[in-house]
């Protein structure tokens, strides 16, 4: 059974009455947004620690051996890159990757970031001990910028699982925030990592899920 001709008339009339702009090249804007996010994250790292009365920037991590620091940073960055590649839609698709993959990223990334940090705990003595609230706050303040970039780079319309997509993007944004925070934080003790580095990423996944439900869901037009 074919749809009635009147439906076609209705749809075409609605389209004519509410014209939408044609496609534009979004790549320059995405790159610009990513650059802005990097600057904003650096700004947070250079400014926020001084609010806690701490040394700002990478100088704060001076007590950590340089080699360990380089490994920690490159491992976290590799994880963030891989997770970004996994959660963004493929080149020919308007839809996000399968839900299982998104869930794996949303849950797996915080755990892998934590495990990677704790792995280095035995290789050097922490220069001091701390609960982890500063790292928690820094992660929470640096993550929104990459989240905005990722949300823009994704297709911004996910009819199947907007919440899961948002959760995965939140986790990936958290991974990029972790890269920045590890530039500043030299600690790798288990309890500190759990509170200051893993918990915020898990909360970012939850927040991302809530944002995803609002940002990516289908709205009646």
């Amino acid at each position, binding site marked *: 059974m074919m749809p*009635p001709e009147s439906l076609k008339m209705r749809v075409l009339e609605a389209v004519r009455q509410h014209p939408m702009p044609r496609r534009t090249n979004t790549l320059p804007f995405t790159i610009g947004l990513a650059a802005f996010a990097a600057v904003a994250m650096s700004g947070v790292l250079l400014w926020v620690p001084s609010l806690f009365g701490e040394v700002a920037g990478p100088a704060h991590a001076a007590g950590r051996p340089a080699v360990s620091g380089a490994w920690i940073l490159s491992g976290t960055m590799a994880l963030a890159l891989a997770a970004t590649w996994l959660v963004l839609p493929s080149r020919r698709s308007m839809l996000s990757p399968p839900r299982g993959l998104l869930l794996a990223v949303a849950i797996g990334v915080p755990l892998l970031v934590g495990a990677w940090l704790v792995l280095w705990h035995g290789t050097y003595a922490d220069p001091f001990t701390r609960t982890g609230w500063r790292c928690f706050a820094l992660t929470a303040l640096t993550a929104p910028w990459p989240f905005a970039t990722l949300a823009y780079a994704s297709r911004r319309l996910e009819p199947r699982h907007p919440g899961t997509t948002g959760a995965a993007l939140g986790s990936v944004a958290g991974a990029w925030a972790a890269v920045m925070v590890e530039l500043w934080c030299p600690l790798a003790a288990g309890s500190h990592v759990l509170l200051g580095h893993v918990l915020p990423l898990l909360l970012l996944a939850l927040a991302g899920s809530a944002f995803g439900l609002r940002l990516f869901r289908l709205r009646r037009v």
Partner: protein
Amino acid sequence: MQAVMGQVALMMDGRSDVGAAGASRADRAMDRYASGEDAAFAEVYDELAPRLHRFALRWTRSRSAAEDAVQQTLLQIHAARHRFVRGGAVVPWAYAIARRLLIDLGRRGVREVLRADDVRDPEEPSAAPSPEEALHHRRVAAEARRNLASLPSGWREAFELVKFEGLSVAETAEVLGITRGMVKIRAHRATAALREEAARRLHGSLESATRPAPRSPRDISEGGTPT
């Protein structure tokens, strides 16, 4: 609903009579529309609307609800015109949008009401059959519908998209948001369950045919299948 049984029979041969033609034309038309050619939307409509309408009609069994779903889906596509990626696939995207709209419709409690509407299957032949044929068709159709409806929703959706809508495994995976392997597993399980049910029914009818004839009209009414 005859079409359902026909599809089951075809599946047993490993074939489907639903072609995937039109998918690439739809993609090209959408690409032209996204690039600024306004007139191409009519072509997008012509490629997508019949397939979406059939899909929605099968889901809702209500013409008005199906038309609403098709209209909403196409308007969503239009609203996302500027975001459509170059060389993107529009068919899985359209089905995913339509499916979400239909799920939302069901959540609002509309689906149950609409299911009760007496709307013919879109692929059912329009020629009027004899009363006996009509009764037989109705029974078979009701049975097939029950069998299909009794499948777990995940299996049923994968089965319907692959076998009725003619989507490829990759497209179905995109529509449902699962992996290709999972689509194959679900469609295979649905096929096996329907085949098993058809075989059981056939076996049951053969058994009843070999039974001695009932002696009184009372026996017939007691032993007959309720309609």
